[in-house]
C-alpha cells in the first residue's frame, strides 16, 4: 500500500462519512449502522451476524465508531492482506466470545441459517449440527473439540477455501475488484475535495 492509495482510502472514508452521517460529532468516523451499510452496499455482504462481527473486528478500540486509522487498517487487510493477516482477522471474527477458540456452540450459532429448512425434516437443526461435526472433524487437528488458532491456521493452509468457513467476512472477489476500480482509478477526481 503506497502513500497514494492510503490517501485515496482516507478520502473514500471521508466521502462515505459525509454522505451518510452529517450528524456526527467531533471525530470523523463510521458508526455501526453506517459501516454495515457500506459493507452491504459496496462489498455485498448480507449476513447480519457476520457484519456485526466485522464491525467489531474493525473497531479495535471498541468505541462504537470506526475512525480513519481503523478504517484504513481494516481495508488494508480486506484488499491487500497476506494470508496470515487474513487468517488472523477471520479467526477474530469467528471467535464470538474472544476466548481464542471457536467452540461448537459458536460454530452452530454462525451456521444456524446456512441450510434451507426442509419442511419434512423433524429436526431442522440436525443438519446444522451435522455440518458442525463435519467441520470440526476436518479442522480440529488436536482433537480437543474446539478450534484453536493453530488448528484453524493449519486447516486453512491445507485448503484455502476454508478461510471463510463460517461465513463470508471478506469481500467477494467481484466486489473487491469493483471497489478497487472505483477508488483507485483517477487521482484527479479527488482533488477538488
Amino acid at each position, binding site marked *: 500500500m503506497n502513500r497514494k492509495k492510503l490517501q485515496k482510502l482516507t478520502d473514500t472514508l471521508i466521502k462515505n462519512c459525509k454522505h451518510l452521517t452529517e450528524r456526527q460529532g467531533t471525530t470523523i468516523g463510521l458508526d455501526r449502522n453506517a459501516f454495515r451499510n457500506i459493507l452491504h452496499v459496496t462489498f455485498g455482504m448480507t449476513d447480519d451476524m457476520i457484519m456485526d462481527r466485522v464491525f467489531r473486528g474493525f473497531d479495535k478500540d471498541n468505541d462504537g465508531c470506526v475512525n480513519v486509522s481503523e478504517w484504513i487498517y481494516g481495508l488494508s487487510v480486506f484488499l491487500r492482506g497476506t494470508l496470515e493477516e*487474513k487468517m488472523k482477522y477471520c479467526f477474530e471474527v469467528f471467535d464470538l466470545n474472544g476466548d481464542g477458540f471457536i467452540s461448537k456452540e459458536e460454530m452452530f450459532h454462525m451456521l444456524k441459517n446456512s441450510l*434451507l429448512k*426442509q419442511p419434512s425434516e423433524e429436526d431442522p437443526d440436525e443438519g446444522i449440527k451435522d*455440518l458442525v461435526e463435519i467441520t470440526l472433524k476436518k479442522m480440529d487437528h488436536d482433537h480437543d473439540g474446539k478450534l484453536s488458532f493453530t488448528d484453524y491456521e493449519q486447516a486453512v493452509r491445507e485448503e484455502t*477455501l476454508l478461510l471463510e*468457513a463460517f461465513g463470508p467476512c471478506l469481500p467477494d*472477489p467481484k466486489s*473487491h475488484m469493483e471497489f478497487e476500480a472505483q477508488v483507485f482509478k483517477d487521482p484527479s477526481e479527488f482533488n477538488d475535495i
Partner: protein
Amino acid sequence: MSKQDVRFSEEWDKEKELNEAPKKEEEPTLQKALPASGKSALEKNQINFGKNQMTKRLEPSLNWKATVDFKDHKNVLRDTQEERHGGKLERSGPIVSAGRTQLVRKSAEKIEEIISESSSESEEDEEPPDHRQEANADLPSEYWQIQKLVKYLKGGNQTATVIALCSMKDFNLAQETCQLAIRDVGGLEVLINLLDTDEVKCKIGSLKILKEISHNPQIRRNIVDLGGLPIMVNILDSPHKSLKCLAAETIANVAKFRRARRAVRRHGGITKLVALLDCAHNSQEPAQSSLYDARDVEVARCGALALWSCSKSYANKEAIRKAGGIPLLAGLLKTSHENMLIPVVGTLQECASEENYRAAIKAERIIENLVKNLNSENEQLQEHCAMAIYQCAEDKETRDLVRLHGGLKPLASLLNNTDNKERLAAVTGAIWKCSISKENVTKFREYKAIETLVGLLTDQPEEVLVNVVGALGECCQEYENRVLVRKCGGIQPLVNLLVGINQTLLVNVTKAVGACAAEPESMAIIDRLDGVRLLWSLLKNPHPDVKASAAWALCPCIQNAKDAGEMVRSFVGGLELVVNLLKSDNKEVLASVCAAITNIAKDQENLAVITDHGVVPLLSKLANTNNDKLRRHLAEAISRCCMWGRNRVAFGEYKAVAPLVRYLKSNDPNVHRATAQALYQLSEDADNCITMHENGAVKLLLDMVGSPDQDLQEAAAGCISNIRRLALATEKARYT
C-alpha cells in the same frame, strides 16, 4: 437428458424415503436402474459392439497406435492409475445407458465421423459398461456420507456449500465406489450447477472434486451429458487464474472421448485454451489477493494438458492450428519444466500427424527442441519426443533436421533400454521413419543400431516389432546392411514373423524380407527356411496391402533363388492363385502381381502353366488404365508373356494392343520403356502391327528412338522395323 433428470430425481426420492428406514436394510430396487426394455438393448449393443470390434481389426491403418492388440498389451503393462486412458474399463462390454435413442444416435455419429477423426482416437470410444452400485453388496459408509453432503450442497448457502465441498474432497475420490456414489445421489448435477453460479469459492470447490472424479470414464460421459463442458469452457474466461487452471485441468480429464472433444470445440473452447498458453502476455496486474492467483506458467501448463486431450480429434488439431497454437507451443518448449514439457510435446506429437502442422513445426524450430529433450531423464518425455519425431519424419526435411541436430545418436542409444515398452515403441518408430533417408541409415549403422534392431526381433510386443521391422526394411535397401543383417542372424526371425495376423506388421515384414532377398546368400537362407512359401501364402491374406507387399517381395525372391522355376512350380495351386489375383480391384495389388508374373514368366514351363490359367485375357482386360505404376508392370508382364505359343496373337485378339499404344503418351520414362518392349514383342505378329499402325504408334515410337535410354531405343527401333517390314511386304504382295 431430461430422461436422466427424471431418473435421478426418482432415485433421489426413493433414497429419501429410505433414509427414514433403518440403514442396515438392503434395498435391491434402489440401485436397479435397468428398465425391462434395457435387456434387449444390452443384447443389441453386444452385437453392435462385436461388429465394431471386428471392423476395427480389419481396418487399414499404418498408425501402429490404432491396432487393437496394442491396446490389450497396454492394459497389461500399465497401471490403472495412468493418466491417459482408462483402457481396461472401456472394453469389457456394451453400455446400458438411460437413453437408448442416445446410444443409437451415438453409433450413427461414430460411423459418420470415423473418417474424420484420427486413428489414435478410435480406441477409446467404446462405451464403457454403466455400472450401477452392486445392489447386493453392502453399500459402503462413504456412500451414505456422500449422500448427506450432497444434500447439504443442494440445500445450503454459500458457507455450507463450501464446507460440504471441502469435506467431500477428503474422500478417496480415485476410488470408483466414491465416484459412482457421487453420481448416483445426484451429486453431478449439483456440482455442475455450482459451476454456473457467480460464487468463486463454490466454483473452485466444485471443480476440485470434478477434476478428480472425471478420471472415471463413465463419469466423464455423465458430465458431458449433463452439459458440463460449455460451462467449464466459459470458466476459462474468468479473471481468476486458479479457476482457469482448475477448469482446464478438468477439461483435460473429461475430453478423453470423441463427443467431449467435439463439444469443447463447438463451444469455442479450443481458442480459449490456446489463449491460456500465452504466458508472455500479461493480463491486468492482479489486484486480487493471492488466494485466487496462480502463476502464469501454471495456467499455461493446464492449458497444454487440456489441449493434449482435445488434440486427439482431427477437427481440433485444425482448430488449434488456426487459433495460432503452434508458435505458442513452440515457445513453451523452450522451458525446462518437465511438467510443462510433457503435455506440450504430447500435443505436438498428436498434431504432427497432420501435414499442415509439419510445415509449421519445421518453421518454428521445434525439431531442435524435441531432439534436445530426447536427452532428458524423464522417460515419458523421451517417449513423447520420440513419437513427435516419428510423426514429423514423414517429411524429408525433418529427417535431415533430426540428423543435423544430433538426434540420431540418442535414438540409437535408447534402443538398448528395453524395459519401458511404450518408449521403446516410440523410439523404434522414430528410427523407422528416419531411416527412410539414406544418410540417416549410414549414421545408424555407425551407431551400431542395426545390430540392436536385429536383437529386438524376438520377445517384443507387436507395436515394437512393427517399427523394428519397418526400420530394418528401410535399412536393407542398401547392400551393406543386407549383409550385416544376415551376419547378425536376422533372416530367421524375420521369416518367422511371416506367420502373423497383424496387418501392419506383415506389410513391414514382407518388405524387409523382400529387401533382404536381393542378396543371393540371404535368399538361400530364406529359401531354406521356407520363406518363399510363406510369402506366397500371404497372397491369400484378405488385406490388399499385405497381398501387394507380399507380391512385391516375391519378385526379388524369384529373381535370386536357385532353381526359381522349380521352386515356383512346387507351390501347389500357387500359379493359379497368382493369376487369379489379376481379378483384384486394387491397383497396388495389380501392379505387384504383374511384376511377379513378369518374374515367373521367365521360366518357360511356368509361362505355359499360367497361359493355361488364362493370364492373357486377364492381362488384356487390365490394359485400359491411366495408372502409370500399373501400366509399367503390366507392359513388362505382357512383353514377357508374349514369348510363348500364340500369346502374341491372343493379346491382339483380346484387344490389348491399342491401349498399350496410348501408354506411350505418358510422362513416365519407365512406362515408355516397358511399353516399347511390349510393343516390340507384340509386333512380331502382323495383325498387331496393323493395330499399332492404325493407333499412331509409329510417330510416338519414332520420338523414342532418339532417347538416351538404350533399352528404350532398341525396343522402339525394333518395333518400328517390324511394322515397316510388314508394310513393305504388303506393298510387295499387292504389286506381284
